[in-house]
């Protein structure tokens, strides 16, 4: 890890060390890291001659004192709710109550990459990316188009699936069961609007993890930030909490819409090499351990 990445990691560690419940700490760390990334990208956009290291250093300066922020966050994020969730694993009565309340629970919506996967049989699929108009137009009043997910603006990026994920066996862990149900290793080509100059092609694995279990006993959405990985070439990938904002490869876990006893997560991993033949997900947190090996097939069956 370079000196700048280390400084950033130290800042994030200090700003979140007061948050005692692990999943909360990981989630807040991820949020602050995303802010830093946006700030750095902005500096490089406004000052094209600025190096990434300088952009990172200036972004950190403008974030403020990590100790002070850490004290405030620690005061706000009390751990007792998180421990209550952990304790509820052993409380059947509470679980049944939660099951009744949460039966119709809906999670979060997501960009429909599964539709892209279905369409990919025909070859290259245009990758629509929302363009933040105010970045391009310079008009400070241009609206953020983030609510218009149906409107995709064509960019120069195309994505092609080069390896396929077609479902793994079901793994049992704790009081829930997991399976990776679908996905692909994608090749991205073209220049990103938000990251001009980033080398092409790039590769990312996206797969859907389906978790079945009673509400309160299943994989907590923020515990998904603890999923790390390894590929068949020996490369390792940190979990979201550890890796986000460090520049090292990591697994980005995002909760998707679930229903009833089933929760779904999309796991995205940049820079998985195209020659990887399998990818293993590893989880070890809160006394629960599991691992799933995901074959990456060259041919779709």
């Amino acid at each position, binding site marked *: 890890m370079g000196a700048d990445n280390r400084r950033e990691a130290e800042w994030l560690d200090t*700003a979140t060390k007061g948050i005692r419940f692990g999943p909360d700490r990981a*989630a*807040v760390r*991820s*949020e*602050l890291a*995303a*802010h830093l*990334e*946006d*700030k750095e990208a902005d500096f490089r956009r406004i000052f094209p001659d600025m190096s990434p290291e300088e952009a990172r250093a200036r972004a950190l300066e*403008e*974030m*403020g*004192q*990590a100790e*002070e*922020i850490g004290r*405030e*966050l620690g*005061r*706000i*994020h009390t751990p007792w709710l998180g421990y209550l969730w952990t304790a509820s694993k052993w409380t059947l009565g509470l679980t049944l109550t939660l099951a009744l309340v949460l039966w119709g629970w809906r999670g*979060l*919506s*997501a*960009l429909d990459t599964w539709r892209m996967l279905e369409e990919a049989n025909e070859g290259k699929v245009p990758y629509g*990316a*929302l*363009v933040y108009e105010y970045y391009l137009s310079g008009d*400070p009043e241009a609206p*953020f188009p*983030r*609510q218009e997910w149906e409107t995709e603006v064509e960019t120069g990026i195309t994505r092609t699936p080069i390896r396929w994920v077609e479902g793994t066996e079901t793994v049992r862990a704790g009081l829930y069961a997991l399976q990776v149900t679908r996905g692909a290793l994608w090749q991205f080509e073209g220049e*990103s*609007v*938000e*990251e001009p100059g980033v080398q092409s092609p790039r590769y*990312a694995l996206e797969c859907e993890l389906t978790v079945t279990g009673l509400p309160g006993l299943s994989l907590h959405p923020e515990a998904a930030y603890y999923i790390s990985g390894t590929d068949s070439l020996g490369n390792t990938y940190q979990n979201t909490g550890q890796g986000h904002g460090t520049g090292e490869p990591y697994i*980005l876990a*995002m*909760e998707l819409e679930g229903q009833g006893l089933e929760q779904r997560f999309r796991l*995205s991993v*940049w820079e998985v090499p195209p020659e990887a033949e399998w990818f293993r997900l590893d989880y070890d947190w809160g006394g629960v351990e599991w691992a799933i090996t995901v074959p990456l097939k060259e041919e779709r069956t």
Partner: protein
Amino acid sequence: MKFDKGLIAGSSTLLVLALLEKEDMYGYQMIEALARRSNDAFQMQEGTLYPILHALEKEKYLSSYQQQAPTGRQRKYYRLTKKGKRLLDEKRTEWAAFHKGVEDVLSGGANALSYS
């Protein structure tokens, strides 16, 4: 112009709630909007926004959700709840009264104490 820290701290809740009144936003977006809408008069230490947001969310004045940015990164968006809207209205009224009070004193106006 740099404002007294106390002035900014006292109004930060009002500012955050007001930003979210018309649209949901994520943290960095709020910092940008604050600077833009105030013509750079308000430029806070950016990390200090998050304890404010998290405290408001904890008290249910805000709710939040994750949405993926085109780069694949997750962003946490905040939304004003009905309870938050009521707080915003109260804070606005409070601010208007405070502002008027200060103006009256500064201008030595009709409501200012005077001895003749």
